């Protein structure tokens, strides 16, 4: 499917939507039905609605329907209000964006209109520092070379400036002509890929000779970018409104469910089944008792012939009595504590990065418990374990290694001398360093030059070259200027063969303005460049140098060049242009064409760049491994560098303590054999106390993941550590998926755009807000400033969250079951007819107030101090294994509630027997007994007490008496005077005291 955009032609403009942005989920009219529909998609809500509806039938309801409707409406109202508020804020910000004034061309003249009135095909004018209102194809800029600079931070989080160029067919049009151009742009239907725009443009006569010109993402200005360093730019609107790249990439990601949530859901299901069983058993028993016994009880006055539905009445009454087994408060309570966990993470000073002024942030507030249950951490290397602060350290030029002694090539006298002597090899090397990149030099008014680079490696190379007196001074469109020893050298950049993670290299074609010679400059990973060396070149020294540097943990890049003949270039250039204007499979076709040029290179040398480990990385990994977490390192870097970094950061141990098993091979058979061998070794040595780790590279991994998934899965289960190098973003995600399929809780941590997919795939995604932009941090559930904060995030926040939620959720069931069991026990002494012992107000208050408020302070509970936990990380094993919330702990709570219910009930009916067995009094005694128990159970279960906990537990306890005394003064209430009576009776207090002591046994 394609879209044809006719420039400046109003007759076609109504084919597409206008530029009105709408991020709102609801409108004023559909809010109520849509919101209700969404809320009722949850099982719990359906359940409570059914119960509430059944309660409207007065024949069966044991309590006032308000006791369920009240909380239900409150819960719905709270969540609807939250939704409405969020939506209103979105509406306001949409409105601001929509009503912003922009200049467009209409009937050949510029007009000032609101952004929402832009139509596809309009020419939009933007001035410096203005936001781009919709996706545009650039047609003109103020710069004579036809370039402009944009900041794309809002789109992809990268803070560097990107250069955008106008399509070649538009070069040279002046501002007057730009008002009048007509033409057609053929572009794909809207999609969300912000790195790709495979389209072409054709201007209608009289402007250009009707030639088709290809368009790429470099010819576009996307919505939400800012125009920088350029006076003005104009372009044709191609995608508008919600169909822009930004609009399409918006969307709600799948909500993640924690292991605990899944467990709670399971337990809720079990309780629901139990409830049904109770209803069936008691319902039938009730019907039997009614037919055999109740008919003799003349005072109950059952009719002899009853309607058919009477057989359902008693079971349904029990259903309603037991409905509180599933506590209505649990969802609200869980939401509350979860958002508190997230806040504590946001607030935490110890994981606040002072260097970059970034606090930790929990973007996903619902999954903190999972942090405590992580079993596998999959980590990126560059920027995550390392600083991603690249410094040029060493190099090997034409067989000579520089920087070996001092560890800094820039201070190596030999190299400085070579530069001063104009050594041709060194100069070529430095020229490639300075030119073969996409760096933009920016000259400040004072004359100093700073570089804006998308890649930290390029930045390091350009800076190093400039320190060695080969200075990239400016880059204006296709012209680059280099200063070398007070000489100015001009180059024309003819083509850029871009870097992709598949090609692992980038090249640029330049022509020397003086001599007119054309050169191909290439740089890339050694295995992507060295094979391209011309026949006969001795590359052994380079291979050795690469090995040597890799062992030092340095990142190596291989630099090469070749002179091109004009004919060869022109021939190739045609193919390249063709490939670039392809609408389908463009990336693949371009790569194919690039390969045609990149061969028989003259290898100039190897550059080695240091990327230091971040502070505290080895300690963090050590501690987290002690706590039973397995680490996998997934990196795009080469094997030797990866292993070196892994050794440096304690991920693997060197021989003889540890052993590395390599899975490699070029063909399927080799890989299969290698995998088999590694698996065998793993099986044999799994009992030995040797730290085994396997190393696999992207090539072998691809074969394994498609062919030998089972064997690899077994390997994954056996191996605690793995290093996967040369992996692509999608392989990273596949590995996460593989571990997830083995039922492991995975955490993926990374910092760059290539980690986004793995971060989204993992149970928990952690982004490091680092130098590679915010892309990863934005996609992540948690963003932190430094890798070492992961320790605290997991051991402190994760563990506390797990413990607290385990208590809160089970307690919520416990207290509901307790009151429910008392009701059931009471039904045995009330003719199994479904009488409620408790009145409606008490039941409701018990569930949503007396027993819900105190337990919320569990967010402050700390079973062990933070110090103890970080010193004894093994303790995390309890959380990982889910020791605090599982069917058996739940069974414990279940038994406890049954036991407590029996105790409270028996004591109550024996202490308040005979002349005291008045309904209201007995009910209040049983309720008080439960409340006393709750105060002590909560106290007993918490480990540390701040004043807030004291306040909540005992304040709530006091509130129970105050509230009931207040109700007891209302003459119309059933409870009138009851609480006053009870409080005057010594036997009441004695009964309470004995109820709670039984709890200890």
């Amino acid at each position, binding site marked *: 499917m394609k879209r044809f955009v006719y420039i400046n032609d109003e007759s076609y403009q109504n084919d597409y939507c206008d530029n009105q942005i709408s991020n709102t989920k609801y409108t004023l009219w559909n809010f109520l039905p849509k919101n209700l529909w969404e809320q009722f998609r949850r099982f719990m809500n359906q359940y409570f609605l059914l119960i509430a509806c059944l309660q409207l039938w007065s024949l069966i309801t*044991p309590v006032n329907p308000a006791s369920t409707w009240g909380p239900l409406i409150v819960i719905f109202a709270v969540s609807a209000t939250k939704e409405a508020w969020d939506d209103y804020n979105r509406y306001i910000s949409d409105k601001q964006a929509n009503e912003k004034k922009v200049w467009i061309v209409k009937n050949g003249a510029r007009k000032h209109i609101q952004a929402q009135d832009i139509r596809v095909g309009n020419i939009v004018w933007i001035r410096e520092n203005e936001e781009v209102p919709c996706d545009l194809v650039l047609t003109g800029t103020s710069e004579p070379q036809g370039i402009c600079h944009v900041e794309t931070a809002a789109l992809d989080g990268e803070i560097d400036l990107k250069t955008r160029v106008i399509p070649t067919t538009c070069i040279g049009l002046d501002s007057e002509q730009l008002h009048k151009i007509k033409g057609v742009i053929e572009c794909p239907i809207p999609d969300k890929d912000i790195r790709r725009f495979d389209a072409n443009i054709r201007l209608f006569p009289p402007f250009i000779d009707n030639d088709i010109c290809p368009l790429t993402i470099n010819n576009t200005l996307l919505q939400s970018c800012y125009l920088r360093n350029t006076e003005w730019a104009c372009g044709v609107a191609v995608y508008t409104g919600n169909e822009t790249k930004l609009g399409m990439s918006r969307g709600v990601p799948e909500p993640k469910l924690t292991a605990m949530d899944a467990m709670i859901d399971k337990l809720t299901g079990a309780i629901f089944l139990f409830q049904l069983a109770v209803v069936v058993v008691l319902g039938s028993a009730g019907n039997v008792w009614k037919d055999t*016994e*109740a008919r*003799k*009880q*003349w*005072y*109950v*006055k*059952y*009719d002899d012939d009853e309607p058919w539905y009477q057989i359902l009445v008693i079971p349904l*009454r029990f259903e309603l009595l037991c409905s509180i087994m599933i506590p209505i408060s649990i969802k609200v309570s869980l939401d509350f504590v979860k958002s508190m966990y997230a*806040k*504590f993470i946001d*607030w*935490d*000073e110890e994981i*606040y990065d002072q260097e970059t002024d970034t*606090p930790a942030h929990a973007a996903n507030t619902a999954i903190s418990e999972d942090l405590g249950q992580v079993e596998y951490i999959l980590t990126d290397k560059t920027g995550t374990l390392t600083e991603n602060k690249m410094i040029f350290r060493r190099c090997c030029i034409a067989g000579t290694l520089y920087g070996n002694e001092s560890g800094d090539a820039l201070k190596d006298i030999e190299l400085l001398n070579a530069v001063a002597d104009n050594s041709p090899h060194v100069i070529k090397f430095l020229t490639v360093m300075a030119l073969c990149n996409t760096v933009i030099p920016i000259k400040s008014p004072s004359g100093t030059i700073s570089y804006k680079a998308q890649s930290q490696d390029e930045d390091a190379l350009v800076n190093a070259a400039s320190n060695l007196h080969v200075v990239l001074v400016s880059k204006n469109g296709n012209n680059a200027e280099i200063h070398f020893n007070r000489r100015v050298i001009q180059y024309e950049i003819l083509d850029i063969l871009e870097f992709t993670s598949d090609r692992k290299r980038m090249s640029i074609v330049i022509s020397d303005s003086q001599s007119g010679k054309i050169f191909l400059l290439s740089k890339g990973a050694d295995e992507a460049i060295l094979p391209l060396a011309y026949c006969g070149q001795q590359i052994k020294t380079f291979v050795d140098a690469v090995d040597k540097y890799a062992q030092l943990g340095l990142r190596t890049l291989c630099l090469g060049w070749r002179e091109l003949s004009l004919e060869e270039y022109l021939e190739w250039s045609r193919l390249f242009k063709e490939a670039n204007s392809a609408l389908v499979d463009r990336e693949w076709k371009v790569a194919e064409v690039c390969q045609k040029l990149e061969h028989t290179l003259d290898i100039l040398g190897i550059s080695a760049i240091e990327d230091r480990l971040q502070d505290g990385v080895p300690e963090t990994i050590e501690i987290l491994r002690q706590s039973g977490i397995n680490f996998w390192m997934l990196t795009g870097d080469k094997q030797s560098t990866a292993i070196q970094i892994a050794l440096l950061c304690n991920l693997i141990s060197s021989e003889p303590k540890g052993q590395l098993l390599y899975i490699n091979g070029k063909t399927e058979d080799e890989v299969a054999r290698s995998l088999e061998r590694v698996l065998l070794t793993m099986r044999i040595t799994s009992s030995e106390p040797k730290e085994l780790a396997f190393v696999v590279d992207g090539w072998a991994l691809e074969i394994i993941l498609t062919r030998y998934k089972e064997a690899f899965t077994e390997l994954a289960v056996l191996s605690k550590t793995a290093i996967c190098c040369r992996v692509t973003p999608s392989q990273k995600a596949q590995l996460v998926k593989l571990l997830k399929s083995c039922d492991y809780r995975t955490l993926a941590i990374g910092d760059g755009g290539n980690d986004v997919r793995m971060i989204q795939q993992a149970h928990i995604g952690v982004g490091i807000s680092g130098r590679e932009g915010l892309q990863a941090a934005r996609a992540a559930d948690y963003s932190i400033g430094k890798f070492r904060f992961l320790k605290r995030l997991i051991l402190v926040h994760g563990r506390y969250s797990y413990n607290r939620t385990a208590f809160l959720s089970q307690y919520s069931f416990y207290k509901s079951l307790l009151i429910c069991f008392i009701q059931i026990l009471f039904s045995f*002494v*009330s*003719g199994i*007819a*479904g*009488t409620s*012992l408790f009145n409606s107000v008490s039941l409701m208050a018990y569930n949503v107030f007396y027993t819900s408020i105190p337990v919320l302070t569990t967010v*402050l509970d*700390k079973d062990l101090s933070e110090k103890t936990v970080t010193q004894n990380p093994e303790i995390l094993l309890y959380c990982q294994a889910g020791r605090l919330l599982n069917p058996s702990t739940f069974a414990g709570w279940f038994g406890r509630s049954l036991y407590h219910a029996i105790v409270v009930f028996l*004591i109550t*009916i024996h*202490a308040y*027997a*005979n*002349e005291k*067995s*008045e*309904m*209201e*009094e*007995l009910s209040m005694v049983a309720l008080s007994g439960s409340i006393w128990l709750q105060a002590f159970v909560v106290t007993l279960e918490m*480990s*540390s*007490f*701040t*004043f*807030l*906990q004291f306040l909540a537990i005992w304040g709530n306890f006091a509130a129970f008496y105050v509230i009931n005394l207040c109700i007891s003064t209302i*003459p*119309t209430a*059933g409870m*009138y005077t009851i609480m006053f009576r009870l409080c005057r009776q*010594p*036997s009441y207090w*004695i*009964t309470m*005291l*004995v109820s709670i*002591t*039984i709890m200890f*046994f």
Partner: protein
Amino acid sequence: MPAYSKFTQQELPACKPLLTPEIVIAAFALIGALFVPIGLASLHASRQVVELVHRYDASCVPVDDKVGFIQNSRTDKTCTVTMTVPKYMKSPIHVYYLIDGFYQNHRRYVRSRSDKQLRYKSAAHLTSDCVPEGDTADHAPIVPCGLVAWSLFNDTYTVRVNGVVTQVNKKDIAWKSDKNNKFGKNIYPSNFQKGRLIGGATLNESIPLSEQEDLIVWMRTAALPTFRKLYGRIEKDINANDNVTVVIQNNYNTYSFGGSKALVLSTASWIGGKNNFIGIAYLTIGGLCLSLAMGFLVLYMVKRRYVS
């Protein structure tokens, strides 16, 4: 920079009780030391209460067809029982009727009443909750309506101590709050027990509901199928070995559902009537705690010596 406060950093000062062996032993000992005296006091109070229980439902019906006897309005249901008081009983002596196997807490029964009707004169027609004793056959509202009122207990007792008729005071047997607030002073019974089936007692239509104390007591429904309700008080001491003769009008039908009836004479103490349960519970727990404390102490000592 995140806002710093002790709360946001989760560093609020907290006390962290540790359950050391010493504390556990001390706690058990303390509970034991507290509970044994309370248990003794309760048990003592309960044993102070003098209680006479006489079951009369079987002995008061001379024939085999008990249901037929009780449902026949023409049979003479007078019945005399004699008891000997074992211990001195100090006034006031409470006279209760005890019914066993009567489910006043049955869902259908307990809800069959209209509190509004009992309270407000204008609410006489609010009988919808009272099914199936709401209205008469010709749709006139019954006051008081509902099964609870309809099944009002109607045995009567005349007490003689050593042959002397002794007044059983039926004043103030109901809760004062019920008389003042729950039952209207200007509401009189109407259409009560006029239906085809007569449930229990009839009411004097010239006395307002607030003064119908037997009804008020009855309508404080019992939570358990065995219950006692206050019939009246004897405001005279009875000496040990005195003969108490009670003439019972045995009207109330507990025979059709196999329940039992008894007459109870009881004094009261600070914990109420005779009830050994609390005392025994306290003594048991107290004793258990003390022995646990002892046991733990021994274990603790032995272990400490063993360790050292």
